[in-house]
């Protein structure tokens, strides 16, 4: 909660703030809850002035209501999607990654999540756009980035322009992640024209709190979600989180239909896929991209991947498309 200070109103001098603090009125919330006459007695300001201060606080801190038409114009004029630069992906995403929201990239180990993220970083790093890549498991490889750019025939200068706009931070704990996001939010760390934040990967940090019999992990996750939403909304950026998928196998006895003796046939195995990070996280991202490795690739030196895009604003649509990875990147 924010503390009282003299910048709120000209009548509220530092001396008066000190006086209020002595009377256990420390924060803005304390100030608003306290009886106006009592405050007037302490500060020796008249009631009108106190009411004026209250009004200013309300104006500054309360959530304003916005008219529908304003929202509509905002919706129409603002850029809503960041193109991924991968045509097939843009088509199923309805134009690109949603700006101002959290997007999840999910898949099994080795399904190409980090590769896709690196490609997205390349495609959206332009002189007018910068990218932050938050690396929690050391998977970011600038050599790989450079090789991709080289394969596309870029000159050294062009490569440098793109690479200068990709910023990498290595983070090893949830605590560090939260303080990093906080300093971005409070503009202690400033990036010019931030357009994309990539967090690869969230479970690597969250799993460190797995198995503790307390809710610290959940608390961190909640703080992270709030900060991430705030940053993506305020700076109009895309926020991509990498999540992982685990599988477990269920066994079920299926009755054999041909057999009249009601005997049970061979046990059948069901593979169930599960997005990690629990039920709380399930509805946080607006857009989920699940990557799935295609079993057979037709061409050599190339990995084919199926992407399924699910949007929680439009739960009926579940589109999929194939993408490929080779030495020259994801396309």
């Amino acid at each position, binding site marked *: 909660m924010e503390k009282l200070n003299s910048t709120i109103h000209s009548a509220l001098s530092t001396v008066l703030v000190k006086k209020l603090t002595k009377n256990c009125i420390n924060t803005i919330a304390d100030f608003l809850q306290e009886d106006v006459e009592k405050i007037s007695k302490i500060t020796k300001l008249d009631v009108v002035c106190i009411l004026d201060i209250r009004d200013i606080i309300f104006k500054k801190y309360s959530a304003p209501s916005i008219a529908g038409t304003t929202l509509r114009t905002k919706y129409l004029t603002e850029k809503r999607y960041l193109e991924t630069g991968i045509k097939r992906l843009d088509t199923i995403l309805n134009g690109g990654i949603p700006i101002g929201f959290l997007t999840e990239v999910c898949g099994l180990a080795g399904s190409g999540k980090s590769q896709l993220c690196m490609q997205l970083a390349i495609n959206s790093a332009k002189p007018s756009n910068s990218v932050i890549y938050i690396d929690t498991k050391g998977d970011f490889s600038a050599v790989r*980035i450079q090789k991709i750019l080289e394969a596309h025939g870029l000159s050294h200068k062009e490569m*440098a322009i793109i690479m200068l*706009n990709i*910023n990498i931070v290595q983070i090893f704990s949830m605590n560090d992640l939260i303080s990093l996001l906080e300093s971005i939010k409070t503009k202690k*760390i400033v990036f010019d024209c931030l357009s994309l934040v990539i967090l690869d990967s969230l479970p690597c940090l969250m799993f460190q709190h797995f198995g*503790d019999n307390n809710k610290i992990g959940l608390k961190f996750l909640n703080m992270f979600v709030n900060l991430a939403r705030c940053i993506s909304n305020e700076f109009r950026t895309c926020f991509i989180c990498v999540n992982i998928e685990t599988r477990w196998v269920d066994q079920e006895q299926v009755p054999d239909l041909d057999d009249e003796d009601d005997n049970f046939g061979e046990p059948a195995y069901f593979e169930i896929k599960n997005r990690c990070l629990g039920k709380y996280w399930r509805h946080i991202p607006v857009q989920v991209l699940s990557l799935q490795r295609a079993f057979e690739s037709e061409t050599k030196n190339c990995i084919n991947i199926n992407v399924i895009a699910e949007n929680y604003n439009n739960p009926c649509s579940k589109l999929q498309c194939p993408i490929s990875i080779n030495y020259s990147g994801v396309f």
Partner: protein
Amino acid sequence: MTTQFKILNATEFWQKENSFPAIPTFSQSLDNVLGNKGIQVGSITELLGLPGSGKTQLCLQLCASVQIPTELGGLDAEALYIDTNTNFTVNRFKEILSASMEKCGNILNTAKSNCESDHLKRLHYVNAFGLEKFCSLIFTLPQLVTERPNVRLIIIDSITFPFKDGITLKQRTGVLFRLSAVLQKISVENQIAIVITNEMSTRIGLSTGSLVGAFGDAWAHRCNKRVLLSAPKPLENERFAALVKSNNSPEAVGKFQITIEGIRDTNG
């Protein structure tokens, strides 16, 4: 910007990454599979394989390779071997070490310069049996590494063993990820290569085949590189190494053999 966070742009990162040396395996085919001319410092590599596929042998070879003198492009550094399963035999290591050093000596045209004990001194061996010992060792590693700044390779053989008993699945995941965060941090900050060996386990009913690395799907994400070793014809002494996951090199398969001198390319 003065913050606790080190923010690099990709060009700076590229320079840093390119300055990272690699530890050769003495088999060119295997080095090619790993990319970057061997095991790269600054990242965690996981070796997977059934018993007898050559995981420990490869680890011993790496402990010798890390001592290659700088004249030959080596690291001229020390290794830390964390043994959780009494896999380590000093005699076998001595064999591999002296063969490797002799090879280096031949190339450099120098007579056997250092005596064997000098080379042997540059291997630090820790046996960490049991989960408590293992965990406390890993958590004190940052200090151990600052005390011995010449250590550039840490081998954990095997990561599976301490977790066999006495821990719930959930706790295991938590502890594993905490330990690997510590490992990753020291590997990045001190430019150390970390090699972990893992066993295989069976999961019936999986669509991608029932033989998978131990610790499940979540752990499979953690390491930067995963190499699967296999010995389809153990009598012919031909081993295969397949890169199943990597952050910067394409997936590939290579061949090597295990000789008395250590890991070598196959003949022909």
